[in-house]
């Protein structure tokens, strides 16, 4: 989908010029740019995964060679995390946060534009590696010495440079959203009335500021080793495990950076479609703060097998298990919100409920990976691949789909097709589980991650075939989503300002909103200002 194709539907016709999108500093347009970037890279990363699933469908296949396979899984991971999930979530935050808090724009609109273009340029730099001597091939977490000379080629330099540039954009974006939320709230919008999506964005921004600098530091050290002959990570004069510590100090909070905004979307959608306020607002918000704190003290659960002392392993195991408590609190509160409600199962709600259904399994396998002996049995195997996709696909991507159906009418003034949406949901739900559920068993049986092929005598063929068939079904589902966007932009049903009978301030303005967002600056009379207007007799007491 080219940017130009979207233009007429978000800008008033006649206003748009060919360079509008390049020059814009409007948070809504930048939000849409982020979302478009995220969707395009999601598609690219998806195609990469489909090639891998085709290669693994049968044992000892030769569809791709090991070098191509290494580049595929490296690019798939880097793309999905840094160029897919993060830009999508930042894009929704960009679009929605000022609207939800009744602001005119973000605090620093020009910085906002710079953030986006840095993020995109980082991605372009990364993909430029393909024509500059080969994509990075040392995995998305690029462990030295494998990512260092002489083992890895030029591609890893592009990995380093691309992520440095992309990370600078992400950090600047987090500063912007943080200041926006703290300083630009409209009258009445106290911190304790923030919509939960804004709450999650607030916590996520703090996480980004804590985590991304660690990645930047690690990348600078790796670059020094590779290009300047330094020895931060060399076994002879440095310490290869230093990279793992610094990388995962970033890497685990990164998991929450891409799941907390998803929690936020779910916490907006489930109440509206259940006709009830979120159950336990303070606990849903507070548990995120707990998750954020804990997330900085769990990184070494990625390293139980590297040879840390038992005391270190026990500490990180306990901290990792603890995260299950605030996460569980959220799941229970979402369920309690549904209980006793009047639930409308339109597509956003289908994906939101699907999210809970699959995310729970990812959460539970996550606990098993915090149990040291079980981690030693399953880490670096397909069990981890399954767990991670239950959290990042079943979690983050399901929530993004839910959010896309929910806020598309706000962004474009048109609904996405419900009929296609239902097909999209069920194909995704079935395809997703068919793809990733069998991988739990493959991992327990001994299939390591990142194998470009496997021997026929392992007996892993049938489940791998099931997984690949699942991936094909999933691909059809996602293709329907793309198709849905394409046709709905042109001919979707008109949505109006408040198509879902919503409560938060973004529904108090037109769809799409005018450049100044609100014709009259709104006042937050409670957590649910629109509810108060619609039900004066049942005003939200908060």
């Amino acid at each position, binding site marked *: 989908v080219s940017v130009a194709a979207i233009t007429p539907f978000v800008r008033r016709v006649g206003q748009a010029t060919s360079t509008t999108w390049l020059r814009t500093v409007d948070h809504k347009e930048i939000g849409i740019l982020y979302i478009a970037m995220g969707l395009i890279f999601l598609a690219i990363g998806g195609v990469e995964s489909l090639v891998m699933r085709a290669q693994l469908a049968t044992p000892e296949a030769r569809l791709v060679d090991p070098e191509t396979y290494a580049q595929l899984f490296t690019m798939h991971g880097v793309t999905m995390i840094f160029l897919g999930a993060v830009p999508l979530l930042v894009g929704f935050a960009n679009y929605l946060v000022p609207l939800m808090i009744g602001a005119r724009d973000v605090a620093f609109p020009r910085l906002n534009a710079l953030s986006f273009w840095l993020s995109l340029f980082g991605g372009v730099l990364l993909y430029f590696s393909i024509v500059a001597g080969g994509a990075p091939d040392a995995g998305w977490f690029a462990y030295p010495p494998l990512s260092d000379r002489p083992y890895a080629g030029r591609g890893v330099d592009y990995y380093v440079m691309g992520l440095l540039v992309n990370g600078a954009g992400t950090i600047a974006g987090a500063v912007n959203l943080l200041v926006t939320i703290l300083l630009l709230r409209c009258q009445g919008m106290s911190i304790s009335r923030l919509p939960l999506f804004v709450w999650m964005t607030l916590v996520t921004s703090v996480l980004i500021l804590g985590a991304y600098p660690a990645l930047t530091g690690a990348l600078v050290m790796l670059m020094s080793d590779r290009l300047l002959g330094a020895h931060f990570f060399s076994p002879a004069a440095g310490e290869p495990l230093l990279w793992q510590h610094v990388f995962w100090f970033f890497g685990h909070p990164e998991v929450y950076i891409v799941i907390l905004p998803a929690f936020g979307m779910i916490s907006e959608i489930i109440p509206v479609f259940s006709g009830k306020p979120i159950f336990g607002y303070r606990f849903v918000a507070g548990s995120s703060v707990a998750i954020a704190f804990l997330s900085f003290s769990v990184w070494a659960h990625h390293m139980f*097998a590297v040879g840390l002392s038992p005391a270190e392993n026990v500490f990180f195991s306990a901290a990792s298990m603890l995260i299950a408590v605030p996460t*569980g609190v959220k799941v229970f509160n979402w369920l309690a919100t*549904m209980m006793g409600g009047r639930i409308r199962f339109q597509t956003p709600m289908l994906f939101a409920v699907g999210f809970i*259904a699959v995310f729970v399994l990812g959460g539970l396998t996550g606990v098993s990976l915090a149990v040291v002996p079980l981690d030693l049995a399953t880490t670096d195997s397909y069990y981890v691949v399954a767990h991670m996709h239950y959290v990042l696909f079943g979690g983050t991507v399901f929530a993004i789909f839910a959010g896309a159906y929910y806020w598309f009418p706000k962004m474009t003034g048109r609904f996405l097709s419900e009929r296609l949406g239902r097909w999209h949901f069920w194909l995704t739900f079935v395809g997703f589980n068919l793809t990733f559920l069998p991988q739990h068993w493959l991992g327990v049986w001994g299939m390591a991650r990142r194998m470009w092929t496997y021997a026929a005598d*392992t007996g892993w063929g049938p489940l791998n075939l099931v997984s690949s068939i699942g991936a094909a079904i999933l691909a059809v589902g996602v293709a329907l989503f793309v198709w849905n966007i394409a046709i709905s932009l042109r001919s979707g049903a008109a949505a109006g300002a408040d198509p879902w009978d919503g409560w938060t301030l973004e529904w108090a303005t037109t769809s799409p909103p005018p450049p100044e967002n609100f014709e009259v600056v709104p006042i937050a009379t409670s957590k649910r200002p629109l509810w108060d207007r619609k039900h004066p007799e049942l005003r939200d007491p908060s």
Partner: protein
Amino acid sequence: VRPPAEAITSLGWVVGVIALVILVGVEAAIVYAAWRFRATRAEGVPLQIYGNTRLEVVWTAAPAVVLTVVFVLMLGTMQEIGASATAAGGPSGAMRIVAVGSQWWWEFRYPRGGGEVIGANELHIPIGTVIDLDLRSNDVIHSFWVPELGGKIDMVPGRINHLRLYAARAGVYTGQCAEYCGLEHAWMRITVIAEPSADFGHWLDAQAAPRAPPTGAAADGERVFLAAVCSSCHAIRGSGAASLVGPDLTHVGSRLTLGAGALRNSDQTMRAWIADPQSAKPGVLMPQVPLSPSDLDKLAVYLRSLK
């Protein structure tokens, strides 16, 4: 002693059953809520419930209690399997075997008398004996993993890690390098042969011996081996070739597989492997050595004769 793999498996069952109960409970609650509270034609505003502190406390505390139980069980299992990769150990009487990972094969060094016996890609262990595997790497990070015998521990260059193995039953166990280590991570397989102590002793004696002097075609094969580049990477004790860059081939004919599990070892596969190692294991560091068909035959016969 209980094999580490059994201890891990029984802990896995306990945690798995707890997780399954929670999973089924939550999924049932989702289905119940979705069905019972779906919007029907009768419209109206549902009761606005904002929360319940007592419930919040319950569903914060209950998982914490379950996790505490899991944590305590975990401590017991860690103690039992010796999940300390930092300290050499195991109970006294453990047999210490050195395992070295290289791109993309394994070297094993067994203690015998005052010295050691070197083998490759096939780990033999006596059953009923605790093995303290001493894990090292020559290049990048590898990870030693034989699921039926125990967990995995990484081989990190510049460090020595430890993994406790114990096989109760004789048999052939297969494993796999678990940490991505470059192109042929996939064909870096492990074969573990667990056998009764006496058989293990005989095997070790045989492995300790230099190669038997070859005769006939095999003798020609040894000349090919020494004249071509083979001997610049491989050792065959007794032949004069002593380089340890690649796997020691002194008793390669006795092994079950070639190329760290890429091929079953047979007369045909041996010849095919030497003729074109890249076709069975693309990326392998062993070069394709130009040899005449007859030299290839003799070399294959020689290597197969090294029992």
